[in-house]
């Protein structure tokens, strides 16, 4: 199995491999053939030879890539936000989504759990697959899709109800547990996000008495309570102080093996600290996608290089 934390310094072969896939991606993926655009953390000769081998996870029997986008284009009315993005998110990893404001990061992120569907004049082309199933297919239940693909917002948004009710809000909505079980769920999740000790004596209090960082952790606990496979995070720490930010980052890293995450961030340091892979979006196009360390240290594209070195954005 691949290890998630290991990031491989690119060897000559690996660089060639990435260049080859970059070219393939520009012409679009052929049907039935998987383009390994997302370089796995371990680049070995075996999977260079045959990327198809990598599409199934032998342990879980599920597709190795939790989310796969094929030729995804998004637009609101006449203005096109995202063009022809094909990308795969590897199970159990954190992917950072970087790019200047207006590059389509948030729109892309909110498309993955179909939060844009109701937006006026929103239009999409291409496909997004979650575990191999089209998220827009009629067989897909929108509510259960969102249970499996959770979301954390830029500003903490606890509901105006008690702290405990906040944690179990989604659990109640999906009838995953009831009665006494709810207390157990609340405790487990609050422990998981490291908030239990701080709030155990005031579970019936208003969440707005908590600090901003604690509120965001509460929202994280709420999102985790429904047992999602994927968590989408839209600048989760940009409203938080540095200490809370560090805490949240450590937490996210710890969640990684069990949970796949996509994090939009303007904080390049954060992308480097927490993510396994990084996607660079610019002007609605996916410019580059690869292991975080190599994208930052040996960017393939000159635009990426300008952005990650701070000369743009």
């Amino acid at each position, binding site marked *: 199995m691949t290890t998630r934390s290991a990031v491989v310094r690119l060897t000559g072969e690996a660089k060639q491999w990435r260049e080859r896939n970059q070219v393939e991606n520009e012409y679009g993926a052929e049907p039935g053939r998987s383009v390994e655009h997302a370089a796995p953390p371990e680049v070995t000769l075996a999977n260079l030879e045959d990327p198809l081998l990598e599409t199934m996870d032998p342990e879980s029997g599920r597709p190795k890539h939790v989310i796969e986008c094929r030729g995804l284009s998004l637009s609101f009315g006449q203005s096109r936000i995202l063009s022809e993005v094909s990308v795969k998110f590897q199970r159990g990893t954190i992917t950072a989504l970087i790019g200047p404001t207006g590059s389509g990061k948030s729109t892309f992120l909110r498309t993955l759990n179909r*939060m844009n569907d109701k937006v006026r004049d929103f239009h999409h082309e291409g496909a997004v697959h979650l575990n191999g199933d089209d998220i827009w297919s009629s067989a897909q239940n929108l509510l259960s899709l969102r249970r499996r693909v959770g979301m954390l917002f830029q500003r903490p948004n606890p509901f105006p*109800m008690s702290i405990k009710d906040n944690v179990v*809000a989604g659990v109640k909505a999906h009838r995953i547990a009831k009665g006494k079980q709810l207390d157990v769920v609340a405790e487990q999740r609050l422990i998981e996000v490291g908030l239990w000790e701080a709030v155990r004596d005031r579970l019936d209090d208003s969440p707005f008495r908590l600090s901003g960082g604690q509120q965001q952790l509460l929202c994280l606990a709420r999102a985790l309570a429904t047992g999602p496979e994927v968590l989408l995070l839209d600048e989760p720490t940009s409203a938080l102080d540095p200490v809370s930010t560090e805490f949240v980052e450590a937490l996210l890293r710890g969640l990684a093996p069990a949970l796949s995450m996509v994090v939009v961030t303007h904080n390049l340091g954060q992308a480097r600290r927490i993510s396994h892979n990084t996607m660079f979006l610019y002007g609605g196009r996916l410019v580059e996608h690869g292991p975080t360390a190599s994208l930052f240290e040996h960017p393939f594209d000159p635009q990426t290089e300008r952005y990650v070195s701070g000369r743009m954005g």
Partner: protein
Amino acid sequence: MDRNRGRRLWELAFRLGAILALALVVGPAAWLLVGVVAKAAPHWRWSVLFTPTTGASGGLANAITGTVVLMAGVLIVAGTLGVLGGIYLAELAPARRGGKQGSSVLRLATDVLSGVPSITLGFVVYIALVLGLHWGFSLAPAVVVLSVMVIPYIARSTESALAQVPTGYREGAEALGMSPGYALRKIVVRTALPGIVTGLLIALAISSGETAPLLYTAGFTNSFPQPHLIHTPVAYLTYPVWTFYNYPSNEAHTLANDAALILVVLVLILLIGARLITNRAERYSEGTGR
């Protein structure tokens, strides 16, 4: 003449104007309250609350219960329709078709209705229901006319209370996979409840103080409200205020003053009750949390 002095003078004039305006608003209200209490208090008898009217004397028990029944009727009819209408306009009306148009139709309706003297509404209902459908002076036409008056108001206050629910709550609910109806019930309406309740309360206060439309629809009776929607008149508190005051007997004047005091107290109870509900609903809100 330096500019500073001119500015200070202007500032002073502005302050004085504001204080004057406040006095003009608060003064009459306070005068009214004091007047009502001062006229009713000296010869107040508690028995007024428990004895029904006989002619222009006796007590007001029939009118008190009648007003309470009328308000309950308005709460049920206008409250349900108004709140549901407001929820529809704010949340469910498709943005492209109904949304904008629906609320502008509602706004028009509110403006027109608030411009129509309530006595006109009373007359219309009198012709249409009391005479037209032979309902007679009774509970149903009275509730109808009061409801017609306040439904647009309730719908509008509900709509604006819902519009003020932060987007973050809605998005959070949506992202957790709550169905729109569930999110509406558990998150959105609950958050907007203080605003909705306040709107309902003001609507009730308006309807409890109405006289003109009730003269045309409710009639008056010495007996307690009966469990009949039509053909049976209902007593109400504004009737003695309006009618008994012109009677020559002292006893009638006393009853008129008592009725005014009871009405004021009733509205006060409504206000306090709504305040309590609002506080309870707001115990987890962002404003009081900090």
